[in-house]
């Protein structure tokens, strides 16, 4: 009743809104840390990547390409293509960030799929929700990555445990929400065919990169 926080959320409201989703970055961060350390990516590199890239799918993607014996170029491109969506996402919230360019640069790093979705829940995008939720996820993501790398050293051959298949399950689960749209299903099917067709002929990771061309289906009317 007349409380200004009713209409103007604060950073801490964003953190509170993000709390129910907290188990997800914790579990993913742990598994990323475990896999990164066990596959020889390196504990410090994994934690630094969580602090700079701060995007789960891309981090798992580059890790899985390297782990499978793919080239650095393929690992980088797979992650960069996955994260290109953040350019589009950041456009949708471009106008809500206050302050100068440096401040906007720093605060825009709070954009992840979940913080972005939470920030738009009330019909318009709200900066304190996005930044508050993003900050909570950021701290949890880095902390759980570090914790995961500490556990990871215990595993000597992660692939004997079937962690390569766990990667596939993760990517599949992440893809499912996109596949509700027909255009996305067609493009994904084309990408699967391209990847399979090139696998016998091209070095590891290359089929993946060529398959990204399937997104050009988006140009069709």
């Amino acid at each position, binding site marked *: 009743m007349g409380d200004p926080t009713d209409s103007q959320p604060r950073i801490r409201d964003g953190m509170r809104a993000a709390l129910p989703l907290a188990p997800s970055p914790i579990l993913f961060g742990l598994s990323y840390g475990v896999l990164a350390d066990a596959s020889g990516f390196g504990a410090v590199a994994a934690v630094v990547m969580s602090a700079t*890239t701060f995007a789960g799918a891309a981090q798992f993607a580059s890790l899985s390409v390297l782990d499978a014996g793919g080239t650095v170029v393929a690992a980088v491109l797979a992650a960069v293509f996955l994260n*290109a969506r953040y350019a589009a996402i*950041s456009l949708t919230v471009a106008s809500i960030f206050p302050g100068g360019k440096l401040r906007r*640069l720093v605060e825009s790093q709070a954009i992840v799929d979940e913080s972005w979705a939470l920030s738009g829940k009330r019909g318009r995008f709200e900066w304190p929700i996005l930044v508050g939720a993003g900050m909570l996820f950021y701290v949890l993501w880095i902390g759980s990555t570090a914790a995961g790398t500490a556990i990871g050293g215990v595993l000597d051959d992660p692939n004997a445990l*079937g962690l390569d298949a766990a990667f596939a*399950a993760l990517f*599949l689960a992440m893809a499912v929400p996109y596949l509700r749209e027909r255009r996305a299903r067609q493009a994904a099917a084309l990408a699967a065919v391209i990847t399979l067709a090139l*696998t016998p002929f091209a070095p590891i990771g290359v089929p993946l990169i060529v398959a990204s061309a*399937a997104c050009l289906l988006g140009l069709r009317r």
Partner: protein
Amino acid sequence: MNSAWIVVALVGVATIAFKAAGPVLIGRRSLPPHVQSVVDLLAPVMLIALVVTQTFGGDEEITVDARVAGVGAAVVAIWLRAHVIIAMAVAAAVTALVRLVA
């Protein structure tokens, strides 16, 4: 240094730039519609290509091994609306089991 650090540096810089693109550079403009629809398809396309690579990928060959059983089990788990972490655990466990038996 090694390949991991090259990945960390390049992916990090690219991702920071992607996230900052809207708030720092673009302001209130939006992407042209055809560019937007291509970008929209990038995530599902790359994710499915990764699924195929992780399931059948070998060293310049298509490999059908224990992973296929694990991923198949994960498909069922996801179809039954299991949490992602459960689906990953199912995939890992089934794959490990098949490897143990085979």
